[in-house]
């Protein structure tokens, strides 16, 4: 005979202000099978839990219902209390009378009645509960890091240094990401390459890290601790095990006029190329779209001259299957370009450039060797205009958000320009200066106070070109809205940070969610900022939203610590809320007839074929079984099964039906 205890929580006043909790407790006490019922201010508090434990012991309760908040909040708390009192934790159920009752209804008798109804359904359910034990699953202690920007690099190094293996997959021929393109970095103005390249080399040399460049993740299946990942290794056409990186091929390649992506199109590269001198690995790949051999069927120069015999035109994309326990997504961001702005010339003025182009111009490894020269004619500009919020905070252009980093890099750009051209004029058109990091506002003030950068509050309406000058039509809203027209030699647009073009595809492959701008979504904006909604997949860096380097690195280390935490035990316990196929004595074994309908509908591929054999090994029956490791407890199979052979533990047909009947019989 069941002896159920019911515990009604006030949740301070969250529940008791709308629901007559005393009445619910009183009526619940009269339900059949209920041996004890009480209400209390905070059930989740220490005294509240003690109250539950004592009641279980004193009244010899066989199951309990805690009527309070959502199980997402405190199911764990109350199940632990039940366990402490000596009963199986799965004999504890929660009735959600806060989110489903008190927060959504006004105070009234009907509200109290609804709370009671919910309590009654859970009482009926718990009577049918069975003892369950958590499932143990082994963990593959290897992490996959997707993306080799500073986020991926930091996460990979942290995990590898903690002693676990890491597989890094980078789409481009080299790791480094956007940071490798930057000149100097705010707020300290240290050289980006100088601080980044040691980390890149460390990744390449780390015994725990396997690096796959020019590769992409094709498919992800499995679950936390046990992901199966297919990696596409794009054909490099160069055998890196033979290649010594001597560079003979790219010096001789006749296909030379390919816009150099690393220098943002200012300059050219060859078809066989390594993107920049400090690239890791510093070995080339052939860009088949621009290679004469692949496009026109003739050339073959690189193969002829390669002293190591490393060139191989025949290789195809290869696929590699790996098993990993955790995944860190660090695929970074992209930038809008100047052609996004009709009013600034649709990108047709060569000297209207974006921030990343400016980085390349200011960079010692860039196309001008660090001298800031304008792209059209190579002249050093006497007057530069910087336009902040270009495309960001612009509903009309579809990007309402603030790109967060551009206020700072614009100040940096203006400063770098003034450092290199002391008598030049730098103007910044801005709406607000968002410089809220440590030492950030001081940095912007330095640009204004020490480097004499002119900040003008107002947006630029239009830019046009006349007599080799760019006429910038702006306004000074701090001067009564007076129009300001500047004849500039160069204009730098701080264009919006956007998600990568393939971000949506990547997210869908990983089964993680993303916002309408295709930035990946964290599980909780405040409390779980580095996890995704898919257990075991973490986020790092700008793929989640615009971020500067300090923030990127912090998030990368945070996500690494989540992976390391996961790897700290050999196995993982999972909720036993999984489907099971019933068992009967031989010769039936089970009522399952092996129709396999469930197998087709299971979204997690958790249902497997099972063969029943007699002692001598003769096949008697074919049925199915559930891989508890893969099952996510969605219940789709249960709905599908025609003869009720498969059921969901913890949410069985029987349990659900008794809940429904409890409502109907009220």
């Amino acid at each position: 005979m069941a002896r159920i205890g019911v515990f009604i929580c006030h949740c301070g006043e969250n529940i008791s202000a709308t629901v007559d909790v005393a009445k619910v407790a009183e009526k619940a006490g009269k339900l059949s099978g209920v041996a004890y019922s009480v209400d209390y201010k905070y059930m989740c508090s220490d005294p509240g839990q003690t109250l539950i434990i004592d009641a279980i012991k004193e009244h010899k309760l066989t199951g309990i219902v805690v009527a309070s908040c959502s199980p997402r909040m405190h199911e764990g708390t109350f199940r632990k209390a039940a366990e402490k009192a000596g009963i199986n934790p799965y004999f504890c159920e929660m009735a959600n009378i806060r989110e489903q009752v008190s927060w959504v209804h006004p105070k009234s008798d009907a509200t109290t009645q609804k709370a009671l109804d919910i309590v009654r359904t859970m009482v009926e359910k718990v009577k049918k509960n069975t003892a369950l034990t958590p499932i143990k699953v082994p963990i593959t202690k290897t992490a996959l890091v997707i993306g080799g920007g500073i986020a991926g690099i930091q996460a990979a190094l942290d995990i590898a240094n903690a002693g676990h293996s890491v597989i890094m997959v980078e789409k481009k021929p080299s790791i480094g990401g956007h940071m490798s393109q930057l000149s100097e970095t705010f707020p300290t103005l240290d050289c980006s390459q100088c601080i980044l390249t040691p980390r890149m080399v460390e990744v390449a040399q780390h015994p725990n890290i396997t690096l796959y460049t020019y590769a992409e993740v094709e498919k992800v299946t499995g679950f936390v601790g046990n992901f199966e990942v297919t990696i596409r290794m794009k054909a490099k056409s160069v055998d890196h095990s033979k290649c010594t990186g001597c560079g003979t091929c790219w010096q001789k390649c006749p296909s030379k006029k390919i816009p150099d992506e690393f220098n943002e199109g200012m300059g050219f590269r060859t078809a066989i190329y390594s993107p920049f001198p400090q690239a890791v690995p510093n070995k080339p790949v052939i860009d088949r779209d621009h290679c004469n051999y692949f496009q026109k069927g003739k050339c073959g120069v690189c193969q002829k001259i390669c002293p190591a015999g490393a060139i191989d035109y025949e290789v195809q994309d290869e696929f590699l299957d790996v098993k990993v326990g955790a995944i860190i997504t660090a695929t970074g961001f992209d930038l809008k370009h100047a052609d996004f702005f009709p009013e600034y010339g649709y990108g047709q003025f060569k000297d209207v450039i974006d921030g990343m182009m400016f980085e390349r111009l200011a960079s010692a490894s860039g196309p001008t060797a660090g001298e800031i020269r304008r792209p059209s004619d190579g002249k050093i500009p006497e007057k530069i205009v910087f336009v902040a919020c270009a495309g960001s905070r612009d509903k009309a252009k579809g990007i309402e958000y603030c790109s967060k980093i551009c206020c700072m890099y614009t100040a940096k750009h203006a400063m770098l320009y003034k450092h290199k051209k002391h008598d030049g004029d730098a103007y910044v058109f801005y709406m607000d200066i968002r410089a809220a990091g440590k030492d950030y506002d001081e940095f912007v003030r330095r640009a204004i106070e020490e480097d004499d950068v002119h900040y003008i509050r107002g947006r630029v309406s239009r830019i046009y070109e006349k007599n080799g000058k760019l006429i910038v039509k702006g306004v000074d809203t701090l001067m009564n809205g007076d129009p300001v027209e500047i004849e500039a030699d160069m204009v730098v647009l701080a264009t919006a940070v956007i998600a990568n073009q393939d971000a949506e595809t990547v997210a869908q492959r990983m089964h993680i969610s993303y916002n309408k701008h295709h930035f990946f979504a964290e599980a909780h904006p405040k409390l779980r900022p580095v996890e995704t909604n898919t257990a075991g997949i973490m986020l790092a860096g700008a793929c989640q939203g615009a971020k500067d380097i300090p923030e990127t690195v912090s998030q990368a280390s945070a996500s690494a610590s989540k992976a390391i935490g996961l790897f700290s035990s050999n196995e993982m316990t999972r909720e036993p809320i999984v489907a099971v196929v019933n068992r009967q004595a031989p010769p039936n074994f089970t009522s399952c007839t092996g129709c396999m309908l469930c197998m087709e509908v299971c979204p997690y591929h958790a249902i497997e074929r099972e063969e029943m054999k007699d002692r001598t090994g003769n096949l008697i029956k074919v049925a199915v079984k559930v891989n508890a490791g893969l099952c996510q407890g969605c219940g789709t199979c249960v709905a599908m099964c025609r003869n009720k052979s498969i059921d969901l533990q913890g949410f069985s047909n029987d349990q659900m039906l008794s809940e429904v009947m409890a409502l109907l019989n009220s």
Partner: protein
Amino acid sequence: MHEIIPQHPAGTLKSQMEEATGVIVSHCYQCGKCTAGCPLNEEMDVRPNQILRMLQLELPGYEDKILSSLSIWLCLACDTCYSRCPQEVKLSQVMDFLRQESIRQHKVNPKAKDILSFHKAFLDSIKLNGKLHEVGLTIDYKLRSLNLMQDVLLAPSMMAKGKLAIFPHQVQNTKEIAKIFKRISEGTKE
């Protein structure tokens, strides 16, 4: 011409404007891009973004300042502002509304007299003929604005070139147009 100016339900200038045009002034974040592109910004006594600012804040005296500004009459409805506004504020519609309200409240800036005379003469011509009669309009405008000498040199040469008709073209049934005017002026009083 006063009878054609619509009556708006009571309220502050901002609430009337939002009701009549659907423009929401809080959308404007005062970036000034409208003003930066406005072809008349240098002429204006109150800049386009400042008009919105005053509507946003509704401090004492602002309504009068807006309604008696010259700016609302200088605005050419060229829509440069709206086409570039990041927040998609339809400033030209705000200006339309403010002009009407300025007439209704008898607050038209004295310097805008000529502009207003022209609009009125224009509409009178339509009301009378259904189409614009340029000579009639010119004469009517000159009488209203007292700019009698302006363009007298141009007009005869235009007539000689066949560009100006001395007698108005008319729609077949001019009464129909007058009726539309009448129905609308009655409609405004509903």
